[in-house]
């Protein structure tokens, strides 16, 4: 039944298996869908989709299959791509223009059609073309919302309309790395030892047998300390402005680390572009919410593994000059590079994770400092593979 729909769901990126499809068929045989399409929609979604992040994919596929309801004006594929990977983040104050464009919907649609024919390339930050981050009525925030509304005006009565509304659009996570995968990677960062401060809670079988034997067969139970992970971790996040585009990625990493309860200790600090004499305790990097870097270096012993998370892209002066700190009013006596080298010296095992793809390091903004920092710390890109390679580095004895 609905084999074509099954394949369409798979083609739209839903990981539907035959098992689930059999379950659905069974459910249909039992008449669980009721008579209407709406019943089928809910039944199908509840069985086939197992994460709210996939509801949107399901809605799109459902609408496509059962009614041919279109995405707003059927945008060519590459338009969606341009729109979905957002290059620019707009200033928060830069908003008043949005209300200035009060076009009628039909007018908008007509203009949109025209523009679609004219446009041949990607646009970010303009005011005319279909693009992102700009003030054009078409694009990520302007047209998008209206278009969706146009796609699904409805009373929640008809399944295709419900699907067409795409209420779960915000939950999509196509481009976002799975925090679970990060966590699984962090699993590998462990080093067991029983030389820890803990209660003796595990039965030591060998010793028990020996002791019991020594006492002529009268039972003597011997307990031992459990073996625990002894890895201690210091994570330093760059929370500077240039990291904003990666904030979702880094917060996933943050989540993965803080949810991993197998470390002996985890400390988080934040810095702004480069490390100077203060480390912030909050990601907002506000003045006075900080500790002395010196204090951290003195009090966290050399066994800590250190992970820097940052784009390493900054002005050369921020790395090399005294007083290079980009925040006005904070003067640093020692250049950032010296601080980084002190970390390197103090903690043998350090890595730097960079959210910028490795293929762009050589020519992106800040390539000079990226290159320089790479000579101090082994640098990996912030992907599952990069993290795994980095963790290997942190575990390796030298």
């Amino acid at each position, binding site marked *: 039944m609905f084999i074509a729909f099954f394949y369409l769901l798979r083609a739209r990126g839903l*990981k539907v*298996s035959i*098992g*689930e499809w059999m*379950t659905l068929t*069974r*459910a249909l045989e*039992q*008449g*669980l869908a009721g008579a209407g399409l709406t*019943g089928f929609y*809910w*039944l199908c979604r*509840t*069985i086939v*989709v*197992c*994460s*709210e992040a996939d*509801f949107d994919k399901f809605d799109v596929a459902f609408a496509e299959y059962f009614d041919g309801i279109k995405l707003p004006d059927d945008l060519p594929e590459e338009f969606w791509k341009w729109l979905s990977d957002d290059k620019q983040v707009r200033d*928060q*104050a830069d908003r008043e223009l949005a209300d200035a464009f009060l076009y009628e919907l039909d007018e908008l649609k007509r203009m949109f059609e025209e523009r679609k024919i004219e446009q041949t390339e990607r646009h970010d930050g303009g005011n005319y073309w279909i693009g992102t981050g700009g003030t054009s009525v078409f694009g990520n925030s302007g047209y998008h919302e209206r278009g969706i509304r146009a796609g699904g005006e409805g009373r929640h009565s008809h399944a295709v309309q419900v699907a067409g509304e795409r*209420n779960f659009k915000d939950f999509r996570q196509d481009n976002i790395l*799975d*925090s*679970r995968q990060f*966590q*699984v990677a962090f*699993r590998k960062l462990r080093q067991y030892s029983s030389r820890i401060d803990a209660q003796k809670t595990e*039965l030591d079988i060998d010793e028990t047998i020996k002791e019991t034997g020594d006492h002529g067969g*009268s*039972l003597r*139970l011997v307990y031992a300390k459990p073996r625990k992970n002894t890895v201690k971790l210091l994570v330093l996040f760059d*929370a500077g402005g240039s990291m904003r585009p990666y*904030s979702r990625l880094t917060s996933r990493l943050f989540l993965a680390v803080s*949810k991993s*309860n197998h470390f002996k200790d985890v400390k988080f600090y934040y810095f702004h572009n480069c490390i100077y004499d203060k480390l912030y305790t909050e*990601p*907002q990097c506000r003045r006075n919410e900080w500790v002395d870097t010196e204090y951290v270096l003195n009090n966290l012993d050399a066994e800590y593994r250190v992970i820097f998370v940052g784009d390493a892209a900054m002005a050369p002066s921020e790395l090399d000059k005294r007083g290079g700190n980009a925040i006005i009013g904070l003067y640093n006596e020692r250049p950032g590079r010296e601080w980084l080298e002190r970390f390197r010296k103090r903690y043998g095992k350090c890595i730097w994770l960079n959210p910028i793809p490795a293929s762009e390091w050589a020519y992106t903004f800040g390539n000079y400092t990226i290159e320089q920092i790479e000579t101090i710390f082994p640098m990996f890109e912030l992907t599952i593979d990069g993290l795994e390679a980095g963790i290997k580095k942190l575990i390796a004895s030298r």
Partner: protein
Amino acid sequence: MSDQFSKFKGSADYVASPELQNAVNVAIALEKPLLIKGEPGTGKTMLARSIAGALRKEIIIWNIKSTTKAQDGLYIYDTVQRLYDSQFGEGDVRDIGRYIRLGNLGEAFNAEKQVVLLIDEIDKADLEFPNDLLWELDLMEFFIPETRVTVRAKERPIVIITSNAEKELPDAFLRRCIFHYIEFPGEDKMAEIVKVHYPDIESALLRQAMERFYEIRAMKGIQKRPSTSELLNWLQALVLAGIDPARIKEDIPFIGVLLKKNQDIDVFRDIREKGYSTRTW
């Protein structure tokens, strides 16, 4: 249509959306675990109690903690007790069965009548925890090697699993579940929910409070948005303190009931005063 279907319709103290009722009934009919996700405070745990109440079944709750292992839910073999007993000649130590104690899952399988089994906050446990339960939840049976006994469900329990999405769950596990995401209730639904809990609340107070509540939820930059349970607590606080509805408009009394983080309260004040906040990251 089977007579099992369309049984659950919510209960006197729990408002379930038609989609949620549908999901529950599908899960019951297909004998599959129902996985419930949703923002904290949308009544995930309450659902299982409500199902048990509505269908007049006993409920067994297995609360998952960070240290919980899958084995704990099946059975525990108390070796140490048995060893000691053998030393002092107490009881019949040849009968291993005396030292096997069933866990929550085991009890649910062993029950004479069908029960509702709530596996609460499955995402709290270790990453591999759900994978360790695949077989047991599929076949509703497990084997105790010590006694060579297979514990098999006499009546397949209705299994409700809740998750706060703190950890993502493994695919293999997800595939076996019926999934429902409890959406945050809209204003109409919310009014209905409040009425169930406080039937005689003043309507002026409720209206004002709801307005403020949704205003706060819509604020950008608030990390932990208040949810249903917070609204209910807040309303109770307002009623107990006898706050005049008109006052709620200007300032929000007991803001700490709604917002639990200092940072969120700062953001909230910023937005109320200046219309925006720069504290977000």
